């Protein structure tokens, strides 16, 4: 009996064990075979993450390799609201000096990410991380710094908080500078700490460097002098461009007012504008040089051809144009030196409006230069089917058209470069189309001599240097207000180049609305031109082509016709 009992007991245990084994087997088959794919996917979804590898933004350098924009890696703290230790939020808020309520508000249900604080220096971020609060993490982000600050602010532009270009070169070369972020697959543990890099999906490619043609030392020099000139004459704004006449490389590009790109809390639109390329203005007498170029190119005029300008005014189509004085009969050279409106308009009408327009156009007016800055203005160079005499006349001395400082300095570079118009550029090593012959070499030569006469005897005398022969032309243009041409707001300009014996640099200075006692281009822009040009040429080690020992005195400066 007991044998039977033990036998059945034995069987029962065996069956029970077999059943258990079978259950485990079924479960194993289900997990390993039937649900395998689903379970593996779930595992990957919980453990594997694709992390972004942030690419650093490339530097912007000047022509000598001095940094103008640098990206500095900084730490950004963030939290995962699902797992953050809410009980320690007040501790976090004290450590960061951020109100508790603000942190609390960022914890939204259903979110897996919230910023705590962006762009922290490593020490501060590490101090917070050392608190070891669950769900608080750091990531690397880059912030842009501009060592030259306000001196280079407008053309370099700026980036936003996400390191994307917003203005200037930062915007137009954003793709090159930003590079591309990489991606990698990583394994993370329960606390979102990376425990293993699985594979690199996309290698990170850091942003490229951008080398400019700007010479930081000349830029500083120009900035300081322009700022002083704008302040001295209580002007609203000012801009300056310095260009290498043979290569078209822009060596300095300065605007006033300016701003500090490293601290833009009170940035205004007026400060951010790169006036030298975005603002077209009616140039006034500075373009008389181009009218004279058309006259010389036509073959009808020589520098010593006499033009009658008496009685100092002239009526066209019911409008009167005037000179400051009755100059009598002037040679073509003196029409330019004394900046006679009557002389220039008579010449223009004789040469023909179409020819004058053509010369302006060939020297680059009315077209964008393609320098690669956002918001460049093409200016305005209207061509009429039929030109009235008054239109031709005012056009000849710079009204009825609009130009940017960049276009004008390019035109003056062409004159200095034996008539070949260089392509303005700001990016070093950029391949460019070869210079086109805009005016004949002979015309360019004669013009250079005439422009030197402007500085030696005419309206531009205060631009003289004791070391370099300077050629250039003044301009004082009435601005337009709601009543038409204003009687008391002007743009004062000086454009020219040096040394005349072998030109190296061309430059333009425009001073917008000088409101002190002086407002003529020859009084406001020319003195700054002479100082900056002399210092810049010395800086570049250009051999002086004259040495004058006595002090230069030029009072009173001859006033040009408006």
């Amino acid at each position, binding site marked *: 009996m007991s044998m039977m009992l033990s036998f059945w007991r034995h069987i029962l245990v065996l069956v029970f064990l077999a059943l258990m084994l079978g259950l485990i087997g079924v479960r194993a088959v289900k997990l390993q075979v039937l649900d395998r794919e689903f379970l593996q996917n779930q595992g990957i979804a919980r453990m594997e993450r694709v992390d972004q590898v942030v690419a*650093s933004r490339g530097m912007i350098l000047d022509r000598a390799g*001095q*940094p103008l924009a*640098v*990206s*500095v*890696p*900084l730490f950004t703290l963030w939290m995962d609201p699902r797992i953050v230790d809410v009980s320690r939020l007040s501790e976090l808020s004290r450590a960061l000096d951020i109100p508790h309520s603000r942190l609390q508000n960022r914890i939204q249900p259903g979110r897996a990410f919230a910023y705590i604080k962006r762009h922290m220096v*490593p020490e501060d971020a590490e101090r917070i991380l050392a608190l070891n609060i669950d769900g608080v993490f750091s990531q*690397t982000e880059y912030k842009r*710094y501009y*060592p*030259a600050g306000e*001196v280079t602010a407008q053309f370099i532009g700026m980036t936003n908080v996400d390191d994307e270009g917003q203005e200037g070169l930062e915007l137009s070369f954003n793709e090159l500078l930003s590079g591309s972020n990489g991606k990698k697959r990583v394994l993370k543990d329960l606390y979102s700490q*990376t425990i*293993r*890099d699985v594979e690199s999906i996309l290698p990170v490619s850091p942003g490229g460097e951008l080398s400019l043609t700007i010479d*930081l*030392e000349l830029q*500083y*020099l120009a900035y*300081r002098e322009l700022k002083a000139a704008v302040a001295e004459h209580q002007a609203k704004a000012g801009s300056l461009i310095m260009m290498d006449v043979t290569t078209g490389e822009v060596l300095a590009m300065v605007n006033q007012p300016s701003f500090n790109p490293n601290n833009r809390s009170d940035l205004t639109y007026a400060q951010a504008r790169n006036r030298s390329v975005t603002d077209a203005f009616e140039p006034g007498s500075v373009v008389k040089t181009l009218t004279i170029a058309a006259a010389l190119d036509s073959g009808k005029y020589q520098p010593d051809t006499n033009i009658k300008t008496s009685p100092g005014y002239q009526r066209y189509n019911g409008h009167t144009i005037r000179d400051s004085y009755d100059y009598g009969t002037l040679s073509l050279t003196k029409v330019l030196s004394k900046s006679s409106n009557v002389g220039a308009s008579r010449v223009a009408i004789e040469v023909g409006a179409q020819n004058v327009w053509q010369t302006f156009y060939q020297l680059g007016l009315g077209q964008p230069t393609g320098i690669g800055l956002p918001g460049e203005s093409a200016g305005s160079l209207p061509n009429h089917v039929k030109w009235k005499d008054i239109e031709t006349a005012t056009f000849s001395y710079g009204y009825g058209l609009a130009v940017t400082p960049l276009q004008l300095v390019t035109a003056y570079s062409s004159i200095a470069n034996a008539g070949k118009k260089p392509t303005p550029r700001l990016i070093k090593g950029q391949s460019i189309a070869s210079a086109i012959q805009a005016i004949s070499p002979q015309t360019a030569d004669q013009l250079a001599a005439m422009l030197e006469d402007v500085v030696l005897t005419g309206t531009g005398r205060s631009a003289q240097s*004791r*070391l370099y022969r300077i050629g250039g032309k003044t301009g004082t243009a009435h601005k337009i207000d709601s009543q038409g041409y204003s009687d008391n707001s002007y743009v004062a300009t000086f454009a020219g180049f040096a040394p005349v014996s072998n030109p190296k640099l061309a430059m333009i200075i425009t001073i917008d609305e000088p409101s002190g006692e002086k407002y003529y281009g020859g009084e406001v822009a020319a003195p700054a031109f002479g100082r900056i040009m002399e*210092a810049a040429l*010395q800086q570049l080690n250009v*051999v*002086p082509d004259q*040495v*004058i*020992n006595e002090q230069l005195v030029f009072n009173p400066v001859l006033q040009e016709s408006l």
Partner: protein
Amino acid sequence: MIRWLISVLVVANISTGIAVVYATFTTRQLFTELQRLEQRDLELKTEYSRMLLEKSAWASPGRIEEIARSQLGMREPLPSEVKILGVSK
């Protein structure tokens, strides 16, 4: 014959097992090393860019000019002090 094959397979099995352990161990070690180096890379980049900024602050033309003029008493030469060395033609 069979016994011989089995013993070879057993040895192979054990040695690949050890190799897997070794490879995993090395991977972990190298991964730790990689993370350490990436950290170092970031630190050095940070330091480099800070140095660069510091250098350009100290060496800014404005500052150099200021020091040259005020502390060192330097100035531009007057035209009378300029001597041009002509190139013989």
